């Protein structure tokens, strides 16, 4: 019999070396998350996956599961904090869902809906972040970047191109393209790259796509993000 722990009272089995979120998602228990991706090493930056273990909060994507631990996740207090974090992500960038083609296929938007976020609450930063449209097939709209580093990890670890990096510190952190010119056109990134397909929001846009998927057939039109538990597979098909 394998070892197990509980999340909100429900027993969750795990294998040695698994993080809490890995075990949870495998067992069909949803924990909100944005920077976690099952195929990549943890990054632990968004903190949406924060859970409570014996009175202490920690990111479930960077905490190893241990036998017998009692994890609280779906509680009003934790969801309030997650909602606040989500609101902060919305105001830090420029997220204009009504004209974003990723609307309905965006994990940030879906998570906000799922957490019952009705307004952005905080003052918007309205940062100035010009798009990079130089590449023939892919457009980068930095306005929507939530600094999850998934594209960075994918380009480095899967594509072997190391085309992206997070630069700057603290509130000034931003995504850059690893090219002398700073332009995507001057990298060897192609449409086939994992980095192009892993963004949970709408930074990487395929130029041949636009609004081709009608409302009603988008991933999160069909069911909310929590009902997918792990929406990675559904989003990968888009």
């Amino acid at each position: 019999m394998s070892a197990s722990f509980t999340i909100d009272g429900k027993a969750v089995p795990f294998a040695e070396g698994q993080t809490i979120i890995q075990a949870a998602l495998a067992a069909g228990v949803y924990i909100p998350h944005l920077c976690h991706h099952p195929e990549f090493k943890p990054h632990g930056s968004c903190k949406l996956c924060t859970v409570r273990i014996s009175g202490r909060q920690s990111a479930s994507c960077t905490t190893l599961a241990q036998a017998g631990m009692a994890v609280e996740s779906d509680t009003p207090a934790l969801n309030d904090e997650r909602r606040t974090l989500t609101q902060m992500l919305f105001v830090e960038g420029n997220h204009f869902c009504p004209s974003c083609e990723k609307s309905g296929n965006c994990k940030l938007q879906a998570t906000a809906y799922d957490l019952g976020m009705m307004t952005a609450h905080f003052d918007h930063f309205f940062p100035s972040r010009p798009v990079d449209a130089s590449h023939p097939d892919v457009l980068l709209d930095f306005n929507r970047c939530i600094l999850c580093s998934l594209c960075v990890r994918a380009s480095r670890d899967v594509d072997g191109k190391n085309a992206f990096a997070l630069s700057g510190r603290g509130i000034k952190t931003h995504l850059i393209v690893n090219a002398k010119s700073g332009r995507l056109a001057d990298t060897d990134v192609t449409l086939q790259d994992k980095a192009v397909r892993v963004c949970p929001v709408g930074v990487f846009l395929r130029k041949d796509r636009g609004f081709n998927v009608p409302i009603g057939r988008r991933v999160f039109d069909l069911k909310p993000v929590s009902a997918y538990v792990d929406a990675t597979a559904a989003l990968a098909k888009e």
Partner: protein
Amino acid sequence: MRHQLETAENPASLRRIAIDTVSRVEGHGKVTILLDERNQVHQVRLHIVEFRGFERFIQGRPYWEVPVTVQRLCGICPVSHHLAASKALDQVVGATQLTPTALKIRRLMHYGQILQSHALHFFYLASPDLLFGFDSDLSRRNIVGIAAAEPQTAKRGVLLRKFGQEVIRVTAGKRVHGTGAIPGGVNKAVTPEERALLLADIYRIVGWSRDAVHLIKQLHAQNPSLYNSFGVCRSNTMSLVGTGGELDFYHGSLRARDANGGILFDGVDYCDYSQHIQEEVKPWSYMKFPFLVAFGKRNGWYKVGPLARVQNCDHIPTPLAEIERREFVDYCGGLPTHAPLAYHWARMIEMLHAAETIKDLLHDDDIVGQDLLRSGVRATAGIGVIEAPRGTLIHHYRVDEDDLVTMCNLIVSTTHNNQAMNEAIRQVASRYLQGRELTEGLLNHIEVAIRCFDPCLSCATHALGQMPLALELVDAEGRLVHALARNGDGSFACAAD
């Protein structure tokens, strides 16, 4: 008389009345009237007091976003912007001809939009004035009053509008601000279930639309002197007409007539619009004043919208609406009418035509087809023109080789009617307000004249940049003490004191 009322000679010595904001129109506008101590009218202006800025913030965005973004100009006729932008961007992606399914789905969406917008305007916004009287009891003069006094009329108004919104929902994905049209075609056709849903109601909708034409016709017959003379403003007219001279809201070429109905130009490719239409900026309004280049600023202004379209076309290609058009033309004695109240009649004829067209499209198997998109040789610019519920709508874009929009120019329906609305209210002011103590009922006459045009004031003020801006300082008695104006070129001028 009328042109003189645009600018008074000594505004500082006059009493200022403001209707702020004009009610039962879309968006925010205000009217200012300057009167002397004998209540003689010296100046009447319709101002637009809000502005948006789409032309500017679309620059630097990828072109495929535009049809979705630009509809946020307006919550009332978003589909018109959605489609005009899509038509322009069809040219950019080289889709010279759409698939039959794409074309018919877009038409269906557009005629649904005409139906819902016309129903909204007639039943919700205009009918209280028309059924109760312009200076009737204010507390009743609204849709709630109509619902109490004429429950069947009100209910039909609601259901007609709802049906139009359903047509939009099945074609665009949402009742407001959908995504159906994309450069080169559409992203969805109609499912057999959606088609059946609409077919179940369409016959009733056609019938009710026909009844609405009869209702407005009756109102004209009951009080012809009012309906034929109120706020008359003779002008040129302009609209798209189809290749056979028929009424067409989705596509065609530009035709303009003079006030007597004589053709000024015809068969003009709308991609050449800028050779025929220019816009004048006046320091006191956010809304520009377009005019036909060949006839100059003073004589080149024109009307658009239902009254222009129904009189500009040679025929309407659906039978019931065509019968009504003929009757309308006969009533006007063969010469075009310029009575603003006749807009309502024309609008209801158009609503009937939209309902009949929707019925025909619902019976067309192409709408459930699967061939949705076309593309071809890329172009760097595109122009899309459509007849929106309120009139001709022009979208013009330039797109660079990286797919970003570098230029956007919009001329929206309400803007074309700017001069006409101003003329109509000057006419009404000099006829009804001259020398009289002003009451709410009298001031409502001004609003009635504006409402005829069904202006969408939010759409009309989309330009950002060197907006002409007027600031007016008014004392406790309502006297204009000081005014500061920023001109269209950015310079400032003191206008009073």
